Structures are given as C-alpha cells and as structure tokens.
C-alpha cells in the first residue's frame, strides 16, 4: 500500500479514509495452513501475509516491502507460488496454503531446504523462506529447464545479500535429482 500521507494536501484528508467504517468489521475466516485448519476473527482487509505473521504467529513468511515488489512473502497456495502481501486472507478460504514452516517433515528438511543450507544460498536469511517457496513453486510449474530460465523465473525474489548464484546452484541440484527420479 502506498503511504497515503505522501499524497495529502495540507489540511485535506485522504479520500479513502472515509470509505472505511469506524466500527471493526471482523469476519470469521477459515484457512488451511500446512494441513491444519485455522479459524481467525479478522477484518476483510487483512492481507494473507499479515494474517500469517501477526494473527497466527507463523513469522517464517517475511515482509520485505508489502507491495509485491520483493518476493520475501512468497507462499504456496494450492502448489502455486504467490505474494502473500498482495492477497487478502479472506480470499484464500478453501485453499491449501503452504508456508516455510510446513515444508519439513518432522526433523527431515525438504530437499530444497537441505540444498539451500549446503550451497549457502543465503546470508542474512530474510529472503530465504520466500526464495525456497518460490523455488518449489518454480519446479511445480515445470517450465524452467536451463540455468538461465531458472534465473529469469526466480527474478521476482530479491536477495539483497546477493546470494543469487548459490540460489541457482541449490535449485539446479534439487531439480536435477527430481528429474532423475
């Protein structure tokens, strides 16, 4: 969301401000997250990202811009990668939502998680959950075959630490193994 303050003329008010009712308008929203049903009482304008982080406490999904510009908030919805900051939680009822917390099976990491550790495909780790979810979504899509294609289709996930070559190494390793199965 654009910060409305930046567009306010002194003394005037932000027009959308008055379109929002004063009283809370909470709904009960049922989300299926990592195989579990979660019931939330939230307003319809709560993003999926904020629902995960602030209402459910699944903080593995990161907020990097809240604008769909960085990819840190990437989660899998019915196997497809999406920016959870550009999605309202209420819209994803009845979908299977998978976050970074839902990838490992007990102590056993998902192969993509293993590969990220092995290839040091991160530094600060903040974009990492988004990168991993995006990489799994990319493999599900099945359209990226070369290193260049993977690179192009991973370009929605910014890594400010600049771990890109290592991220590609990790994805190629997982893809390679998957391809031989």
């Amino acid at each position, binding site marked *: 969301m654009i910060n409305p303050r930046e567009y306010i003329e002194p003394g005037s008010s932000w027009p959308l401000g008055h379109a929002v009712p*004063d009283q809370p308008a909470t709904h009960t929203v049922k989300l299926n997250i990592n195989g579990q049903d979660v019931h939330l009482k939230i307003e319809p304008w709560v993003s999926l990202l904020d629902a995960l982080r602030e209402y459910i406490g699944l903080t593995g999904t990161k907020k990097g811009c809240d604008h769909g510009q960085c990819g840190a908030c990437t989660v899998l919805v019915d196997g497809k990668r999406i920016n959870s900051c550009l999605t309202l939680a209420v819209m994803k009822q009845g979908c299977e939502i998978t976050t970074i917390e839902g990838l490992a099976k007990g102590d056993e990491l998902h192969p993509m998680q293993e590969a990220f550790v092995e290839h040091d495909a991160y530094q600060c780790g903040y974009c990492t959950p988004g990168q991993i979810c995006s990489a799994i979504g990319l493999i599900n899509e099945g359209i990226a075959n070369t290193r260049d294609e993977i690179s192009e289709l*991973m370009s929605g996930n910014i890594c400010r630490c600049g771990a*890109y070559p290592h991220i590609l190494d990790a994805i190629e390793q997982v893809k390679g193994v998957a391809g031989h199965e």
Partner: protein
Amino acid sequence: MSLLQKLGVSAENLAPEITGKYIGKPISRVDGRAKVTGNAKYAAEFNIGTGILYGYVISSPIAKGKITAVNARQALSQKGVLNVFTHENVPGLAWFDRSYQDQDAPPGGSPFRPLQSDEILFSQQPIALVIAETFELARYASTLVHFEYEVKEELNVGLELNLYKAKKPKKHRFPVPKPRGDAEKALAGSVVKIEEAYYHGYEHHNPMEMFASTVIYGDDDRLTIYDKTQGVLNSQSYVKSVFGLSEDEARVISPFMGGGFGAGLRPQYQLYMAVLASLELKRSVKVVLTRQQMFSFGHRPATLQKISLGASAEGKLQAVINRCYSETSTFEEYTENVVNWSGQMYQCDNVMLDHKLVPLDLFTPLDMRAPGGVTGMYALEVAIDELAVKAGIDPLEFRLLNYAEKDQNLDKPFSSKELRECYRQGAERFGWNKRNPEAGATLEGNNLVGWGVATGCWEANQMPSRAKAMLSADGKLTVSSATADIGTGTYTVMTQVAAETLGVAMEDVLFKLGDSVLPMSPLQGGSWTMATVGSAVKLVCDQLKAKLFKMAKKVENSPFGNSKEEDVVFADRCISLKEDAQQYLTFTEIMRKSKVNYIEEDTTSLPNMLEQNEYSRFTHSAVFVEVKVDQDLGTVHVSRVVNAVAAGRIINTKTSRSQVLGGIVWGISMALHEDTVMDDNFGRFMNTNLAEYHVPVNADINDIDVIFVEEHDDIVNPLGVKGLGEIGIVGVAAAISNAVYHATGKRVRDLPIQLDKLL
C-alpha cells in the same frame, strides 16, 4: 599495559599455522537450519499474539518548514486507537546532544530527535506515531491525522547545485593526509595527464528486513527490546541515555538481522518511537517501518571527486590530486574516507588531497558497505584506467608499473600485501592476456564486448572486545559475546574458532550473540568482526585451556605431572601427551576428579597497538570484469567477474565466498542500478520503493568467480584474518566502468551507468 602484555602472550600462544579441523574449511552455517525453516526470529517477530500494540509512523510530506497545526481527533476517535504521539505531546527527554550520540554518530553534531520539535529538517521526517491494537488500525488511523505546515521555500538539495557552500568539516573521522611533494607543479610537468570529475548519487542500503523494534514492557517495569541493529550495546546505550534508563531497565536483543550493510550502525528512529510509546503507555509496542520509510534516514552520500593525474611518457605516476565534495545534513557532519586511497594505492611522490562537505536539507548520510572506500576507489581506479589508455599502456601493466611497495600516506610498510598475486591469479583465471588492446573493437552478435580491471582495498582493523567461555563437565562449550550476525556468518565462524581452539566438536559448541547482557563487543561493521571477536573467542578459549590443563596436572595420578602446555594436545574433548597419545584425560574426567561442574573464563582482547601501529594494514583485491553492451539499446550486462582477494587467513571458505560474492553483486548494483533520485524542487526522493530503486535480481547476475589468494599476516591480529565484509564490493564499479569504456569507447563518469548515458 598489563592488558597489552596479556595480548602479547596470546599472540605468542598462537601456532603460526592454525591447523584446521574446522578452520579454513567450507562449513555450512550452524544457523542454517533455523534460516531455512523459518525459525530464525527477526526483530518484529517476537511475542506475537500477546496483546502487543502496533505503532505506525507518519512521515512528513514536506522537506523543510514547520508544523503549524496537528489534529488527531478523528484518529483518536477510532475504537482501538490508543494514542497519537507528536511533538505536541512527547514528554521532555534528555536535553544534551551527547545523550543522542550513538557509537557511529559523527563527532560533535546534534543528532536528529524524533517528535521533539515542530521543525521539519528533511523530507519523510517522522512526525507522528499512531498506536493501535492492530497493525491495520494503526495504519488506517495514520491517514486520519491532519497536519498543517508552513513550507520553507529556500531548500538546499542537489550536491552540484550547492558546491559553492562546501566547507571543511570541523572534525574528519579519517584525517586527510597533508600534501606531499608539489602535485600542481608535477602535474604541469607531466607528459600524460587527465583531469576529470567522477560522481555518484544517493544510495540507500535497503536490507530486505525493514527496521523494526519490539519493546516488551515487563511486569517489573523493565523493557526487553528486540531491535534490528548491528550492535545491541549501541542501541542499549542510546535508549539508556535518551530515556534515562539503567542497564537493567533496557535489555536489547537481536539474534538475527535481515541485512544491515551499515544501516544498523546507528539506532534508527523506530527504536526511539517504540520505546517512547511503551514507556508512556506501559504496554508492549511494536513499530515496523515501511519500505518507503527505509529511504527516510541515512544513505551513502552523493559524492563528486575532481581528480587530476599526471604521468611520465613511460607511465610512471608523477602527480595525484583529488578534490572531493560530499553531502552531509544541516545538523551533523558526516565524513568518510574517500580521498586517502588516492594517496595510498600507487607509488607517487606528489599528492594533494582535499575533502569538503556540502550541508543539504537531507538526513545525515550513514556508513554503507565499504563507506568511502567504494566511492574513492571507484573514481581513482577509473582515472588510472584513463591515464593508462592515454599513456598507451595496458591498464593492468600500468598498475604493476606503479605498484606501491609501502603506504606513502602513513610512510609505513604494509603488514602484508599480496596484491601482485591477486593481479596475477585473477588475470590468469580471466584470460586477460587475450584482451584486445583497442576499445570499441570487439563485437559478438549485436553486443560490444569489453574487459576491465580495477583494484580493491579496505582496512584490516581490530577493535577491543570481550568474550566469555564456559565448559561444562559433559564437554559442552558455551562461548558468548554481544556481537551480531547480520548474515556474515558470525555464529558459524566463532563456533569454528572455539571448537578448533579447545579441541571439541562444533556440535558441542554453542555461540551466543546479539544480547546486551553478553560481554562487550563493538558494532558489527568495518569488516572487523572476525579479527575482533574472533581474537577474543580465541583468547578466552586459550585461557580456558590453560585453566583446564592446570587442573589436569593436579588430578591424582595425572599423566601430565611434569608436562607443559606445549607438550600436550587438546582434541576430541581430551588432553593427551604429544609424545604418547595413550596418556590422556578426558575433559569430563578432569572436572569430575577436580569436583567441579564447569569452568569459566571471561576476558578482554585488545589489539596490540604498539606493534600494529608500525604497519599499514589493508585487504586487497583485483577485479576483472567482462561486459556486453547492446550497441542499439545501450543495455549493459556483466557477463563475467573474477575477483581475486588477499584477506589473510580464511576461516570458512563457504561463508567467505558468499560474502565476497555478495559484495560483487553490490558492486554490479552500484555500477549499473542503484540511484535514489531527488526531486530538486521539493527535496524529496522520488523512487522510494523496490520497483523503482533498482537492485540486481537473479537474472542480472551471471558468472562470478572468487579467488582467495594465500596471505600470511601475523601483525593484523592473533588469527591472521583481515575481514571480508567490504572488500568484495570495492573496485567492482570501477572495473565495470572500465569494461564499458573498453566495449564502447565511451567513458561514463557518473554512476549508475544507465543506457541513456551510452546512447
């Protein structure tokens, strides 16, 4: 003196070669699992669902003037909005400037005090904090707070527009060397010369994690503060002095940081805001900035360098002049080391350096990855390339011809300098000898291909630090220091050093950091953490060894009755005789027999200044770059980079490679992408988001090769390490600029090199 002597002992204790079970190995991060599972917790991710309040910051839409009226009535009428803090209702806080000066504050300034005045000093200045029960409500209520302003028309923004106001800073953090020889005269007498100006604009750090502080208000009125910072002790002392709290009343914790790059060297204003609201409301409060607000504080300053170089017909450098102008704010004088590199990198007897500041109506600039170094080395290394071209000498050969065997700025030898070897190995890997000497003459399809080289350099400093170590009878070792891991791998490398030193497995070591209750450590910055905290960890583990060995000798029937520490080996949780490995005691046996459950040491490690001051201590690198420039569109792609780095001992080849790699990506970013664009009429940055403030994405990065050149240095610190946080970025932008020239025959002297500059 006694501490210095202590350090002397520690340097002696260190075998010239630390034989590596762990050190020097490509070891995966010990915190890797936490990072890939989402369990690593960052500043905004604590105490969710405990009724914590949300703060939303309102930023000023004007750059200069006064707030004449505030009306928060409508916002406060919303159910669930608790308060709106503005300059009208913020309580009296610390009075003196020094209370607001943190460890990285420019000396002698008046740090910005949020919400304490109606005056607007810069655009996006925080002017209010809205506190509500949910994030959505706080954000919505922020749109209901009305401000009226008196806008000051006379606005000073734009470095070049305000050059006439340039002045010498009262105190330069890195004193500019006095002139040597007569540079003007030598320049006039030079056969080959260039006189050019080099510029880069404002850049913002933009770590992926936005600045956040979570303040937990305890039952005992004490605060536990989770802050995004590169130094918990810096945040703690700031909060203590501004809000008049004691050490016990404000504990600062930061186990993980989603990138810093210098942005976290000073406490950012969300910390002040969250603490303020928490103390006033006696509730727990969380404040997270927006991505737009990440452009509202310190940044790399726009800098202009006017450089003149002169050389003989044979290509010997005879004159170096660098006159630098960089911006600062109206309330602090921010300085960085931009020009000194020009007097240090190459052998030259006639040098004149100068650095002036231009105060603008912006926030104070802030150290950003290799502050000053990337700026100064960019300009110098492009200028050297230009001079080499004019002299008709290969740019690599030109650098070797003028190689500095000693640091002429300081008139001191280098503690170590394997730069020649960097040039050699880098050139070989890159294939430099196949370079076409002619510019603009290599075509591949529709792309002009160019090769460029540049040198990198950064300080190899060691600071004082403390560390504590505790070995328990079950053989588990806990080591701690209040340092940070901003993605650099601190957790991992300190675990390696501790395990290696004491002879235990890495799995048995827990390294703790990022908590203000831990032993003192400086800010994580300046590439000094490995040297500083690493030396402290090594020292404390050495002391623990000595203690344990002393105990082992006293144990009944000890096999070490007459042995000295150098006669034994610490390995696999045992002490054994070098001569006879069958003669051993396990750590557990020693402690059980001595009837103790654990042993502990707490120590201070100080740099051996007496020795270090005899030398000039730097890391060096040679960067080789290939670019492809579309001859119709002017788009530049960096197709290949080889960066050969001499940085002393490498502790972890895996995380080190990542650091240098990241630095190179930053260099590519600086050369081709990053630029915060100022609207000179309104004094506001126009591209305050990640779609318009360009940083490289995956597809922008191609083949990158990192070489670590072997370098031995027993002066810099007991570990012989030099640090890697900055060196990777330095020189990259110059190498790219030089490659673009080689590809196109066009010399671009302001960054970033965007396509309009090549068409």
